[in-house]
């Protein structure tokens, strides 16, 4: 069966230990988490956990059902085949001596990213977008030499 990346959006109690229950369950059942983002929602007692996992349909169904059994989990949306907006945030620290700096600035503008720090030989770029866009940027920047990357987990909301 084909494995695919799935974005699960969990609405959970904003209580201590809930994240441990969720991640523990996923790893216990033998799955790897590709990315994870957690934050409080419009209701301060409720958090949204966005988990990206790679799994086939059967495995995904099993993860989802097991997550549903956690008393602190209220709702689970699978955004994989649903219209949704997905964003990730990445910070790239790129090797940027004077001779390539201009070129880099142009690239950053094309991607509508932001330069948030400039050093003697480096430049830090902040970019948001979906995984594909950020991957494309990373591939391009790699030619210049990426010193460091910091990346958040994916966050998603359904459209409309």
């Amino acid at each position, binding site marked *: 069966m084909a494995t695919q990346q799935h974005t699960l959006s969990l609405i959970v*109690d904003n209580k*201590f*230990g809930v994240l*441990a*229950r969720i991640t*523990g*369950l996923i790893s*216990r059942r033998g799955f790897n988490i590709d990315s994870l983002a957690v934050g409080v929602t419009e209701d301060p007692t409720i958090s949204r956990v966005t988990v990206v996992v790679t799994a086939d349909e*059967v495995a995904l*169904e*099993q993860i989802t*059902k*097991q997550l*549903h*059994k956690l*008393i*602190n*989990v*209220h709702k689970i949306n699978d955004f994989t085949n649903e219209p949704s907006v997905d964003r990730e945030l990445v910070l790239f620290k790129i090797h940027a001596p004077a001779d390539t700096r201009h070129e880099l600035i142009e690239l950053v503008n094309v991607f509508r990213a932001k330069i948030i720090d400039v050093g003697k030989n480096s430049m830090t770029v902040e970019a948001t977008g979906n995984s594909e866009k950020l991957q494309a940027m990373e591939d391009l920047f790699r030619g210049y030499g990426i010193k460091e990357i910091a990346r958040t987990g994916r966050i998603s909301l359904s459209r409309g």
Partner: protein
Amino acid sequence: MDTRTRKDVQNKAPEERPMNGARALVASLEAEGVDTIFGYPGGTVLDIYDALYDSKKIKHILVRHEQAAVHAAEGYARTCDKPGVVLVTSGPGSTNTVTGITDAYMDSIPVIVIAGQVSTEAIGTDAFQEADFLGITMPVIKHSYLIKDVKDLVPSIKEAFHIATTGRPGPVVICVPSDIAKAKVKYEGYPEKIKISSYRPTYKGNARQVKQAASLMEKATKPVIIAGGGIVSSGAYSDLKNIAELLQIPVAETLMARGCFPVDHYLHLGQMGMHGMPAPNLAVSRSDLVIAVGTRFSNRVTGDVSRFAQHAKIIHIDIDPAEIGKNVRVDLPIVGDAHEVLSAIFEQLQKSEPQPKTSSWLEQIDEWRKVGVKEPEDDPKIITAEQIFEAINELSAKRDVIFATEVGQHQMWASRFLINKGPRTFITSGGAGTMGFGLPAAEGIQIANPDKLVVCLAGDGSIQMNIQEMATCTEYGLPVKVIIFNNSTLGMVRQFQELFYMKRYVATDLPRIPDYALLAKAYGWTGSMVDDPKKVKGAIEQLFDTEGPALLDIHMSKDELVYPAVKGGNPITKMIGVNDADIENATSEGRR
């Protein structure tokens, strides 16, 4: 600072003492109808124990090891349909319960474990007797609580009991830091109702699926029911019998369901799976419709999943949606309580007045029942498992008896040879296979069933894992009877070494230490030993007739194996101890 003198406290009536977390906890347990707590005190639960001092409704049973507290609570819960309650201290007191909690989790038994914890400000500092019990137990609980505000204590207890006993039952842990137990709180009565919006188990089966199930069952010519532990926890015995009889469907059982279908019934097939008899294993494998109720298709039941019931459509009824499709493919899932769903299917079936279509299937199954299983060599000097169980069956026929088992060969022999007289009379550690379960479980069973004969069937390996509980039985006057199938080896493991590791016996043989009859006497029990086949029956009769706790050590040969046995990874039709030719001969044309 508390300036009360000891006298002040002693002179005050319980109701006048200041309400604190500990007292609110005990009041909540009383309101919940708890009559027994299995526990062991320690530093962080002293306030709770102090509150128990005043309770007239709750009896505290002081076990001798915290693991045993959970097994005793399980024995209690498994035989009286009420959750078992455990109280232990923080650190090692709590970590000692983990095996018991795992056992309850694997077998879906409602147990509430209340554990002390270091005070809230000390959590995370590696304080004396601190262990992250909440974290340690996370994989083996249905839900858990760490109380950080005394106001949350009473509602959490209400939630814990609700969660443990509803839906698919299971263990719930409540960690109570010592300062929470001391904290002043207003106790405004125990809440009558609780609403947990994210927890709503499904009881009633989907009406369309119920109809589809009925229609599949009516049409099937080679159907078989696999009854699991869900039949027991939902009390669906008569629903099961109704359907089986209406459509003449034979019933195979998992270990957890033993006793849920009358053993002398012509539709009864017995235990299936790794140590199942030929009839249930062949019936499931050759059937055209499997109706699985309240079972999670453990690998001990299915054998090689890819070759499990290959020709059958599978209806899977379970209260836990996550069990459906987890281990085997399912053609028709029904999420719901076994009793609710089976009674709905029965009603649906009655409407159409179906004619059973299984007469030739049942004839075939009767042929499979005759397929022989390898027996131990005849030796007039050696006591066999079958001889012991013949005596037990005969002598317990007229008694109201509940059996508990430890884990190993004796457990499988018991499942094969013992005549279970009804539901909740054969109590065993199924999913976890916990050695050391039987004796403390028997203790809890005896407390819940003071007038019944409670017999713990044990091996000489497993009995030692919680043998200290003999002291608990003596102290509380629990007349538990223990029969040790003593073959001076860890028989089940040795059997694997014999069959699958070319008889390279490693770390399995046990010397006959201790002398169990003598040990029994040291614990204040009656103890005896038998090694002569002619004296077995008399010895068991004497054991059953003994007042108070008693132990019988039966010396057997280490060469007797459990048959049939299916090697892990093989299909359940490939049974060691059964001749394939016999199966061939017993199978009519068209079914091979």
